[in-house]
């Protein structure tokens, strides 16, 4: 563990990435204390004001302070981004691992489920269950998580298919290690690379999907702000109020970049062989 920390700490970019993620989460948590203005209260006399000392990031189409809306929006957007991606990764890893490791008809069944989910008109399913669901951050995270795990599942399964035939796994079998132990200790860690990418790319996708869900009355409802819906509302005014769609986009970018650095730092720190290999490679 201490070796892990030592390597991680040396990777200054990764530390910076982690710090930014933590900072963003803190902003979200303390949003009510940090936001300079009421993020929900319209003031039509001040609509679409340029960024200024009064409104650092300008105002939106109803005269609300964009900075305050961004700060409050971080709550939903970050939660949705991280949690729904977590749900998707969990389901995808478990199903992908089982399919890839077991193979045969288990694999067939799980992969056909994946096929079904990929084709399934989830729009209509959501409409159908909408009658019973109230839009809340929990339903949003669950819905996004439950409809976006298929990619991870197929990626993990492919890794398992090749890894389980490798010498070190076959050897573990030979010495009588339990299946679970082999999967947990030997195969899974080596199958995580594509999952990491899928998760990184999944975060902005989830943040934007959230605002897309408002199509169904399932996203966060007005006047509450999320990065996704601030960005969408800015669409009509892009020529006169670029800041409306620029800052949410920037916030999403910063989140992804920071998370990416952080994730890769952890990945590298967990795996000293990689650093060694690359070092020697040059």
């Amino acid at each position, binding site marked *: 563990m201490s070796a892990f920390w030592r390597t991680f700490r040396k990777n200054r970019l990764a530390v910076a990435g982690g710090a930014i993620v933590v900072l963003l989460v803190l902003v979200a948590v303390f949003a009510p204390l940090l936001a300079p203005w009421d993020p*929900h*209260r*319209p003031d*039509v*006399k001040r*609509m*679409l004001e340029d960024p200024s000392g009064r409104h650092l990031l300008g105002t939106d*189409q*109803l*005269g609300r302070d964009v900075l305050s809306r961004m700060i409050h929006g971080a709550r939903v957007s970050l939660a949705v981004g991280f949690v729904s991606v977590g749900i998707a990764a969990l389901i995808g890893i478990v199903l992908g691992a089982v399919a890839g490791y077991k193979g045969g008809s288990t694999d067939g069944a799980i992969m056909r489920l994946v096929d079904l989910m990929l084709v399934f008109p989830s729009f209509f399913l959501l*409409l159908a269950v*909408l*009658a019973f669901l109230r*839009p809340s951050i929990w339903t949003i995270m669950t819905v996004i998580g439950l409809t976006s795990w298929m990619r991870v599942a197929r990626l993990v399964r492919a890794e398992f298919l090749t890894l389980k035939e490798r010498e070190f796994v076959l050897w573990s079998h030979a010495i009588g290690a339990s299946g679970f132990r082999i999967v947990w200790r030997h195969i899974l860690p080596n199958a995580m690379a594509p999952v990491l990418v899928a998760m990184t790319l999944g975060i902005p996708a989830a943040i934007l999907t959230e605002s897309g869900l*408002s*199509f*169904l*009355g399932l996203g966060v*409802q*007005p*006047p509450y702000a999320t990065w996704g819906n601030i960005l969408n*509302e800015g*669409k*009509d*005014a*892009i*020529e*006169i109020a670029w800041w409306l769609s620029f800052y949410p986009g920037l916030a999403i970018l910063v989140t992804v970049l920071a998370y990416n650095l952080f994730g890769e730092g952890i990945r590298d720190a967990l795996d000293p062989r990689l650093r060694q290999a690359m070092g020697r490679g040059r």
Partner: protein
Amino acid sequence: MSRLADRRFATVVLALALLALAGCAGEPDGPGEAAASTPAKPAYGDVFVEPILGNISGLIPQLTNDMISSQVSSLIYSGLVDLDDHSRFVPALAESWDFGADCRSLTFRLRKNVRWHDGKPFTAADVLFTHAALVHPKTPTARRDDFAAVESIEAPDPYTVHVRYAKPYARALMSWATAMLPAHLLRTWVEQGKLREAPQHWTHPVGTGPYKFEEIRSGEKVALKANPDYFAGRPYLSRVVYRVIPSQATIFLELKAHGLDSAGLMRGLTALQYTRQTEYPAFRKAYAKYRYPASQYTYLGLNMKDPRFADRRVRRAFAHAINKQELIDGVLLGLGREATGPYKPGTWVHSPNVARFPYDLAKARTLLAEAGWTEKNAEGLLVKDGKPFTFELLTNQGNEERKKVAEIVQASLRELGVGVEIRVLEWASFIKEYVKKRRFEALVLGWAIGEDPDQYAIWHSSKTGPDDLNHVSFQNAEVDELLERGRTACRREDRVQYYHRIQEILAAEQAYVFLFFRDALPVVARRIRGVEVGPNGLTYEFARWYVPRGEQRYTAD
């Protein structure tokens, strides 16, 4: 031809009157105006490029029900009568008509020598056929009722049509503004119940209108060319090309790059574009901006099955608490006018003399107190019988205007101590699951209003069932009676009294909290002349628009 001259004159007089009355019909146009009004000789030629937001859904107008399709087909077809830009009936395929005093008989004398676009003569047989087609049980049209009301229709000679109604029918004359369909091409399709599959519906429409169909590329464009034999005179502009551009932002960029001649004649610019993005000389030099009230209003509907909203004082309190000017400024950037009822200001049926509900929070609080809402809880919400005054406000997805209205209403009512949760829903499920089933407390919606003032379907107490349109369940015996009278009287002088009274009651009751009429904000390239704007828009005289020879841009003829 004399009809054109007459109407021009009348238009000017009326437009002036309306300018004084309603504030503005046509927007005064600044620097470029002089250029546009310099006398220039009308000339044939040039192309008019018009954006449409979506694909058309067919070219037999009675089978479609969207604005875009009817905009395109209005140039291909003509009706027996037409409505001018001030909603007055004017001759079209019928050169004159008699409406019997009993409102039950109607006689049209048809124009002679009118030809379909394929050269066949237009006669009374086509009128009879159009009627037969629309009442045929297998024709999928929403306009059947108008023609099912006809008791008998006959043609004593090829240029006369007698129509008789079983009961007095106010919409009779209006209904004959519908497009006449060619009997010789469509008869078998109608008889087989397959009118939708007729080639005239998509690739080969044939009408009697000013423009002939030339080409369609689905999702891309529809092109029309001038009909040299048009009965009211050959249109000046040689071609009209409708380009499908679904994004308002793209339309605006195309406009700046001079790829279009208008921003859409029906709707035009967004309020933001109109006020903030077009006020520079190059734009004003290239385009003339217009402004007139669009035929649709936005309202706050309160479900009167909810006992809280059944109390008129509550509805009136809300009307006082919502600052309509703030709404118009915030949502429309000032480009709209307050709605006091369901009719458009400046039209013959609109009554300005109704109860007004100016922004007055104190008054609103008093009214709520009278209704028993006196206590407040810790959150500052009004409480009665232990329950806080909160409700859910629904509106449909895809309409930023309504969403903003909901947000401002929410903030306004919070001032009163009323808590509002907004919910934005996808249109189809919104209608099916919430509006039809009456599973809502309040909603922000709008109505597009038709040419005829009959609103029986919206306000009559018999129309509160699940498939009906009186979704707030408004019930008022006097309104019921007035609605019935209004739809069976055929003279406007009589009808106007009934509808004025209806407006008084609707306003006093706040059947809806009426909010505003948005302005349509079209722009037209300056090289196009002869454009006039009336309270009903500017497309009525389209066939008379022209580009002076020296300014023509496209030579394709």
